[in-house]
């Protein structure tokens, strides 16, 4: 039996009719938030990462109904191609994007990190990106991107 739930996605509240076994990832994708990607559906790869109340989660492992009354940030809630978020800009400038399939997840994990820890060291960055598998880049430039993003965001706050 479907249930009507309400979620605030990227600052906008909407209600959704969801089946009890529907996953958050599927709800988001069918609602147009296609930046969350399907990579394994098993909670290992992190391509489906979104922020749930500010924390990165694998949306493939969370029932949509559990998001009822909560806040979600997807990649669509950051910048757009003509107006990049500083983290997105940093990922491009650092050369941290190759095929791009894991990137929405990695960018969101970075946002969650930098919201909590504005000046993370390399070990902390590696831990934050650990759940976002990438086969293209070897992570080096992604780690550099996070450092660059941290500098950009700090500069902005001043």
């Amino acid at each position: 039996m479907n249930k009507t739930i309400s979620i605030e996605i990227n600052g906008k509240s909407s209600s959704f009719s969801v089946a009890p076994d529907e996953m958050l990832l599927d709800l988001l994708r069918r609602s147009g938030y296609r930046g969350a990607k399907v990579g394994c559906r098993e909670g290992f790869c992190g391509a489906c990462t979104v922020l749930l109340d500010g924390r990165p989660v694998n949306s493939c492992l969370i029932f949509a109904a559990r998001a009822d009354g909560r806040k979600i940030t997807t990649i669509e809630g950051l910048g757009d191609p003509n107006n990049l978020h500083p983290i997105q800009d940093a990922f491009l400038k650092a050369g941290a994007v190759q095929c791009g399939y894991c990137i929405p997840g990695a960018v969101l994990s970075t946002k969650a990190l930098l919201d909590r820890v504005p000046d993370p060291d390399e070990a902390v960055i590696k831990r934050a990106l650990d759940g976002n598998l990438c086969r293209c880049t070897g992570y080096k430039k992604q780690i550099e991107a996070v450092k660059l993003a941290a500098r950009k965001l700090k500069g902005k706050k001043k």
Partner: protein
Amino acid sequence: MTVSPKKTRAASKYRVVGTSPVKVDGPALVTGRAVFVDDVEPDGLLHAAVLRSPHAHARIKKIDASAAEALPGVKAVLTHKDVPRNIFTTAGQNYPEPSPYDSFVIDRKARFVGDVVAAVAAETEKIARQAVGLIKVEYEVLPPVLDPRLAQKKGAPVIHDEKEARVVLPIDYRPKQNLAGHVDVVIGDLNKAWRTADSVIEGEYSTPYASHCAIEPHITLSLLDPAGRLVIYASTQVPFHARRIVANALNLPVSRVRVIKLRTGGGFGGKQEVLIEQLCAALTLKTGRPVQLFFTREEVFTSSRTRHPQIINLKTGVKKNGNVTGIDLRILMNTGAYGAHALTVVSNSGSKILPLYRCDNIKFWADSVYTNLPVGGAYRGYGATQSSFAVGVQMDEQAHAIGMDPLKFHQRNHIREGETSPIFAALGEGTEGVEQSIGSSGLAECIKRGAKEIGWKSKRGRRGSGPVKRGVGMVILMQGSSIPYIDMAGATIKLNEDGSFNLMVGATDIGTGSDTILAQIAAEVLGVKTGDFIVYSSDTDLTPFDVGAYASSTTYLTGMAVLTAAEKVKGQILEVASEMLNKPVSSLELAGKKVSPRGKGAGKSVTLAEIANYSLYVKNQKQIIASASRTSEKSPPPFAAHFAEVEVDTRTGRIKVVKYVAAVDCGQPINTQQAEGQTEGAVVNGIGMSLFEEFRFSSTGKLLNSNFGFYKIPSARDLPELKTILVVTDEPTGPFGAKSVSEISINGPMPAISNAVFDAVGIRLRHAPFTPEKVLRALREKRG
């Protein structure tokens, strides 16, 4: 030609080449707006699911799909009875393909656990999977071949007993003996080589099955357009090969098939296979509806393609002075249930390592055999990965045996600029190879700078006194750039009225950055910025032919096609400008988005926008547009020297890579940042293969670790201190001096890490991956 580093730094002889503009597809990718196949959802979309064989080897005696068909929401069920029985190869290679024709859309026989038995299209994925469970199959279970060493034994079960199995090139193919391909070459006199050697070493090495693990699983969407043509949205490295193979498999003329490559979420060779397009298309033809076939991660592991495992027997002879007298490389390669790239991968195991060492006596012998295990395919490194491991380790063993520093050993033995190897002519891709001499090599510089960066002199032989030992190791590498006289690439460039350009290429950017790199090449010629190009790749209706993203060919080969097309367009621009300015073409130059008379104060200039407007609207109207296509006559090797520093915990057997240095000569990097990125990605993938990536099977041939929980790939925390050094050279045949970069560096970690472990604890690891169990066992054996 080697360019000294000083000269390179001073010589910004290029305006755009060698810089690192932001990827042209970057903003869409980083904001999640880029369209991958899963992001296309046409009205009436059906979802497909595949019934897969639970048996390694079985004939389908009876198949009853009636219960599945009766399930509400199911729109089609296909079994072997419902698809054309056309044999083909799934290997996305040039026609005629050097891989055997041994595959059907769906066959009457299953040849590995995970082979296709039937396919369903239904209104939802859930219904499709439910329907798959309702298909009743009666199997005649056959004895399987699960060990490549037993594949050719007398009386072994014949895996490809279908009468249609054949080859379309004159290659050694003996399906009755489970032999999918064989190649051998002898150069010089091996007996003499062993006689004259001071040290002869023989050893067995092996590499396991491994998965590409592109984060986007294999996916296809097919539909019929309003004219009834089949349109396939593919995540592919090879759209044009896909069009040809699908048309052939389904009895359609090529003109009725259109393949559109959308953004592709990584390939690494795994999407050089036309594996799911024909099955998905068959469901569309049956239902008339759009169908999406999206592999689960488990299916990617079990039923897509893999790195071919190899058992390598290597014998080398070396004199005390370090000269290599002979190399005898014998390979038994397991191609699994189908012969995708069966011959060419193993041929490359010879052709992409044997020329690296100066040596007059060489024997290469290779069998590629069928087994009832998952199917091999193209995988970044393409055979060179496996053989570079064996050769790289044994050369280190030889250096140790004659008491020479491996650094010195490699410095004296590697091939030089202007030199050739008989292997180039002897070993090709299913045919003979092409003779070539080395036109550019920065290998000596790679060795020198890599050694300095790792601290070779200060770290070598200093193990430390605690239970955790340290060591450094090295290896030298080569690859190729395109397949000469076989690969072909085309490009079209068109000028728009605001002075922007369309660049249309059949080459497939699968994350490799080729859209950007090709735009940079065109921008260099046309005096504009990379961002002035709207790049479109690739669509079999709209872009020129290109073999696709494989064989390290795109930058080198498509790059030359783009360069040629850009020069043609430049010629047209100058002609129009000449008419507008009433000045001879020879007096004009194109730079900074305008054409001006040469020399200061020589008169008025016209902008590209004015030129475009003039030619579109004013006089002698025409579209400024040009196409060009190119083949290559050479496959210039990139070279590399890799260095690893490791820690080995002698209590646990755990290896930790502390630092890794990849010094690479890829000619002139077109996009420095992307060239580094290719190197870093390849190295980290190689570290995974060295330390933990491998398929594990049950005794009945079922893959046991078909997810990222049990088949680990490196995550951010596995990254060592990683340093990439690009040694710039100028390849005379390449576009602006470029060679390839994407594959070579995956070949380094296995040998470099193995050699570093030897330096640390004195054990030789000859079987990848180097798990703690293997390390502990070797340490125990060494203690005796």
